[in-house]
C-alpha cells in the first residue's frame, strides 16, 4: 500500500515535471516567434512578394546576375578564411591561458577581450593607417608602401586578415570556456602512462575542446559574413564586392524595387549563415564527449623553457589588436581637426570636455545604450539557458528550426533587421493596440533578433560538454524543471552563460547598424550618435566619444571584477 502510494506520487511528480517542461518550451517558442520568426518572415514576404504579388521572374532575374554570384562567392571565401584565422589565433590564445602555466594571465585575458569593445570601423581605420603609404610607423622602418601604390589591405586577403584578428576574441571566449572545464586527472593519467605533454594535448585536450572550437569557429564565420565595416572600408576601394556591400549598394538605390531586392539578397546571406550552422551541428554530432567538471582541479601544462616565448607571443597579439586601434583613436581625439599633427601645441582636451559636459545628447545616448545593452543581455541569458537545454538535451524539430531562425537573425546585416522590425511594428500591435514604432522598445526587439546567437552559442557549447547524468538522476527522483534548473543546470552552465551575457552587453553597447534606422530625435544610442558625429564631419569629437566608451567599459569590467569572490566561479570571462 505504502509502495503504491509512493509510486503514484512519483508518477504525478514526473507528470507535472513534463507538463512544466512543455509550458516552458511553449513560452520559449513564443519568444523566438516574436523576436525572430515574425520580423524575418515579414522581410521574406517583402522579398518574394512585394506589394503582395509573387513574382518568380523577378527572383530569377536577381539570382541570375553575375554580380550577385561573385559577391556570394567572395562572402563565402571571406567568412571561411577569416573564421579559420580567428579560430587559429583564438584557440592558441585560449589554450595558452587555460591550460599552461604562463604568467600575467589576468591582464592578458583583459587585453584580449577589450578589443571587442572597439567598434570595427575604428579598428579597421587604424589598420589602414598602419599599412598605408602615409604610415608613420612603417616609414620609420623603411617598409611603407610607396605613395600611389595600391593599399595592401584593399584586397580579399586584407579583409580576411582584419576580420580574422577582429573575431579572434570571440573564438577565444568559446574555446576557453570549454577548456576551463577540463579535469586534470585525465591528463595526469595519460602522462603517468608515458604520454608526452604534446601527445596528451593532442589526444585529450583537443578532442575535449571540440565543442568550444567548433562553436567558436561557427560564431566567427557568421560574424564575418554579417560584418559591414571591414568589407566596406577595405572591399569597396579594393573592388572586392561581397553580399553585404552589395546589399548596401542596393539600399542606396532609389525606387520601390530596390527595397524588395535588398530583402531578397539578404536571404542569400541568411542561407550562408544557416549553412555554417548546419556544418557545425554535423561536426558536433559525429562524436560526443562529455565531462562533469565541478569537482575536478583545473589542468596546467608546464611549458618549461617555452613559457617566456609563449608569453611574448600572446602579448604581441593582445597589444597589437588593442593598443594599435586605441592609439589611433586617442591621437584623433586629442586634436581639434582630423589630420592635424599631434604636438604639444595642437593637443587639446576640448573634444573630451565637449563630449562630457556640452553635449547632453551624448550623455543621454550613453544611458540609453547602457540600459538597452543590459536589458538585451539579461533577457537573452534568461531565455538562452532553458532554450539551450532543449536544443542540446531534448531536441525536436521545432527547437532546431527556432535555433536556425535565430542564426539567420544574427547573420543578417543590422540594417535589415531594423527594416524588418519597422515593417512589423509600424502599425500598432493588433488586439493590445500598442505602437512600438518610434520608441526604444523597437530597438530592444531588434537587438533581441540580432544578438540572441551571441548568448545562445556559448550556453549551447556549455551544455554539450556537460555530463547529463546529474540532471537525469534529479529527474528520475522527480525534481521539477525549475528545481533542476536552479540546483543543477544553472551552476553548471554559469560560466558559459556569463561569457555570452558579456559578449551581448559589450557588442550591443557600441552597436551602430541596428539602431541607426530606429533612433529618433529623443531616443538615440551611443553608436548611432558616434556615426552621426562622424557623418557630420566631427571626426575628432566622435573619436573622443569612442575613447570614453572604451574607458567606461574598462572601468565597468574592473568594477565587476571586484565582486569576483562573491560570484559563481567562471562567470566573468576575463577573470582567472
Amino acid at each position, binding site marked *: 500500500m505504502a509502495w503504491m502510494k509512493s509510486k503514484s506520487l512519483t508518477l504525478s511528480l514526473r507528470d507535472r515535471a513534463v507538463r512544466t517542461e512543455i509550458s516552458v518550451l511553449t513560452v520559449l517558442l513564443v519568444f523566438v516567434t516574436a523576436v525572430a520568426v515574425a520580423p524575418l518572415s515579414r522581410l521574406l514576404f*517583402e522579398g518574394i512578394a512585394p506589394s503582395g504579388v509573387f513574382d518568380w521572374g523577378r527572383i530569377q532575374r536577381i539570382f541570375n546576375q553575375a554580380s550577385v554570384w561573385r559577391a556570394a562567392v567572395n562572402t563565402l571565401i571571406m567568412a571561411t578564411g577569416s573564421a579559420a584565422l580567428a579560430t587559429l589565433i583564438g584557440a592558441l590564445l585560449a589554450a595558452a591561458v587555460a591550460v599552461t602555466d604562463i604568467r600575467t594571465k589576468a591582464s592578458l585575458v583583459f587585453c584580449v577581450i577589450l578589443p571587442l569593445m572597439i567598434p570595427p570601423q575604428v579598428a579597421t581605420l587604424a589598420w589602414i*593607417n598602419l599599412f598605408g603609404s602615409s604610415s608613420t610607423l612603417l616609414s620609420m622602418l623603411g617598409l611603407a608602401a610607396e605613395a600611389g601604390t595600391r593599399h595592401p589591405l584593399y584586397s580579399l586577403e586584407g579583409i580576411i586578415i582584419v576580420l580574422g584578428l577582429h573575431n579572434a576574441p570571440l573564438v577565444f571566449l568559446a574555446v576557453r570556456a570549454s577548456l576551463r572545464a577540463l579535469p586534470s586527472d585525465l591528463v595526469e593519467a595519460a602522462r603517468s602512462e608515458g604520454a608526452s605533454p604534446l601527445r596528451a594535448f593532442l589526444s585529450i585536450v583537443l578532442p575535449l575542446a571540440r565543442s568550444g572550437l567548433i562553436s567558436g569557429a561557427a560564431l566567427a564565420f557568421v560574424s564575418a559574413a554579417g560584418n559591414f565595416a571591414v568589407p*566596406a572600408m577595405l572591399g*569597396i576601394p579594393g573592388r572586392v564586392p561581397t553580399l553585404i556591400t552589395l546589399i548596401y549598394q542596393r539600399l542606396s538605390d532609389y525606387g520601390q524595387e530596390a527595397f524588395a531586392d535588398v530583402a531578397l539578397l539578404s536571404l542569400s546571406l541568411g542561407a550562408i549563415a544557416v549553412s555554417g550552422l548546419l556544418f557545425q551541428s554535423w561536426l558536433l554530432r559525429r562524436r560526443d564527449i562529455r565531462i562533469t567538471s565541478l569537482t575536478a582541479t583545473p589542468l596546467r601544462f608546464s611549458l618549461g623553457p617555452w613559457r617566456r616565448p609563449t608569453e611574448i607571443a600572446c602579448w604581441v597579439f593582445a597589444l597589437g589588436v588593442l593598443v594599435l586601434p586605441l592609439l589611433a583613436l586617442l591621437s584623433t581625439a586629442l586634436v581639434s581637426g582630423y*589630420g592635424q599633427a599631434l604636438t604639444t601645441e595642437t593637443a587639446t582636451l576640448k573634444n573630451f570636455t565637449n563630449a562630457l559636459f556640452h553635449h547632453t545628447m551624448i550623455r543621454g545616448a550613453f544611458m540609453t545604450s547602457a540600459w538597452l545593452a543590459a536589458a538585451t543581455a539579461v533577457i537573452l541569458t534568461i531565455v538562452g539557458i532553458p532554450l539551450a537545454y532543449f536544443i542540446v538535451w531534448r531536441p525536436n524539430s521545432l527547437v532546431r528550426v527556432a535555433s536556425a531562425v535565430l542564426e539567420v537573425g544574427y547573420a543578417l546585416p543590422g540594417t535589415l533587421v531594423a527594416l524588418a522590425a*519597422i515593417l512589423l511594428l509600424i502599425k500598432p500591435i493588433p488586439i493590445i493596440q500598442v505602437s512600438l514604432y518610434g520608441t526604444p522598445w523597437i530597438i530592444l526587439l531588434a537587438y533581441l533578433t540580432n544578438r540572441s546567437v551571441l548568448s545562445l552559442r556559448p550556453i549551447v557549447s556549455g551544455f554539450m560538454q556537460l555530463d547529463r547524468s546529474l540532471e537525469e538522476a534529479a529527474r528520475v527522483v522527480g525534481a521539477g524543471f525549475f528545481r533542476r534548473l536552479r540546483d543543477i543546470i544553472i551552476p553548471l552552465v554559469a560560466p558559459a552563460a556569463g561569457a555570452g551575457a558579456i559578449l551581448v552587453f559589450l557588442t550591443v553597447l557600441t552597436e551602430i547598424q541596428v539602431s541607426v534606422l530606429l533612433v529618433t530625435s529623443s531616443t538615440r544610442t551611443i553608436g548611432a550618435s558616434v556615426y552621426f558625429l562622424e557623418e557630420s564631419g566631427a571626426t575628432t569629437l566622435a573619436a573622443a566619444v569612442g575613447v570614453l566608451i572604451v574607458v567606461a567599459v574598462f572601468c565597468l569590467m574592473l568594477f565587476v571584477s571586484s565582486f569576483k569572490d562573491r560570484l559563481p566561479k567562471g562567470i566573468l570571462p576575463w577573470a582567472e
Partner: protein
Amino acid sequence: MKRLLTASLLALLSGTAFAAPSGKLVVYTSQTPEVAQQTIDAFKAKYPDVAVEWIRNGTAQLMNILRAEVAAGDVKPDVLFVADTINIGQLKREGRLLPYAEAPTTPYDKAFHDADRTYFGTKIVATGIAYNTKTAKRPTSWSDLTAPSIKAQVALPSPLYSGAALNHLHTVAASPEIGWSFYAALAKNGVAPVGGNGPALNDVAGGRATYGIIADGDVMRAKANGSPVDFVYPKEGVSYITEPAAILKTARNIEAAKAFIDFLLSKEAQQLVARQGNIPIHPEVPAPEGFPKLTDIKLLPLDVGQAINTDKEVKEKFRDIFGG
C-alpha cells in the same frame, strides 16, 4: 480708402486667425543633428502652436525608412527635408508629393525649385575639390586631379554607395567640359572609390589622399577646426545639391507643413543657413565668410528626370570604368 483699409485689416486679421497652423508636424530630415535642431527651434519660435516631431538620419537611411513605411502602408512624415533632388524627384514621379503652388518662391532662382512646385531647394552645397594643404598645391581645374604625377591620390566617394556622389556623377557626366573622360582618367590613374563623403574627407585630412571630390560645407568646417584641408570651386564648374523640402501627399497636417516650407524660404531661415556654414540661395542673404558669392560659382545644371531615367546605365558605366 477707409473701407479698403478696413477690408485689408480684416483680411490680415482673418488671415492670421484662420491660417495659424497648429497640431503635430512630423519632419524627416537629413541635416546634421545640430543643424536640424537649430532649424526646428527657429521654426518653433515662429510657430509656437506647432509641435514638431522629427527624425534625423542620412538621406539613404531616411529613404529606406520611408520605403518600409510605404510597404507597411503607413507613411509617418508630413514633410521631407533631405539632401538631393534625385531621391525626391523619384518620389515625385511616384506621385507621393503634394504640390504647393502658393509657396513664397518669388525672390528665388527658378533652378532651385521644382517647376511643378512639389519640392523647394533651401541652400547650395557644392561638390568641388578638397585638398590637403600640407601635401598638395592649390588646384584650379578638375583636370589637375588626372595629372599622371598624382597616381591613386584622389579620394573619390563611390556613387554606388553615396547619394551626394551619385548626384555629382550624373551632373558631371552630362557636362560637355568634364564628362566621362574625367572618370576614365581617374580610373587609369589608379583611383579606387571609397564609401562616402566622410571617409573621403578623412582620407584627405589624414594624408592618405592628396585630393578629394567632396562637398564644400564639410571641408570648410574641418578647416575651421584646424584640419589641414582647403576647398576649391574648379573653373569648369561644380555639381550641387539644394537640400530640398517637400510635402507628402499623405501628410496629416498640411497647414503646418506649408508653414514649414514658408519658413524655410523666409529670409530669416536663409540667414540661419549662412550662420550654419552653407551658401544660402536668397539673393539678399550673403554667403558665410570664406565662401564665394553664389553668383561667382559656376553651378552645373542637373536634369533630374534624365538622371532618374539613366540611373542604371550611369551606374553600370561607372562599374565598368572602376571595376565594381
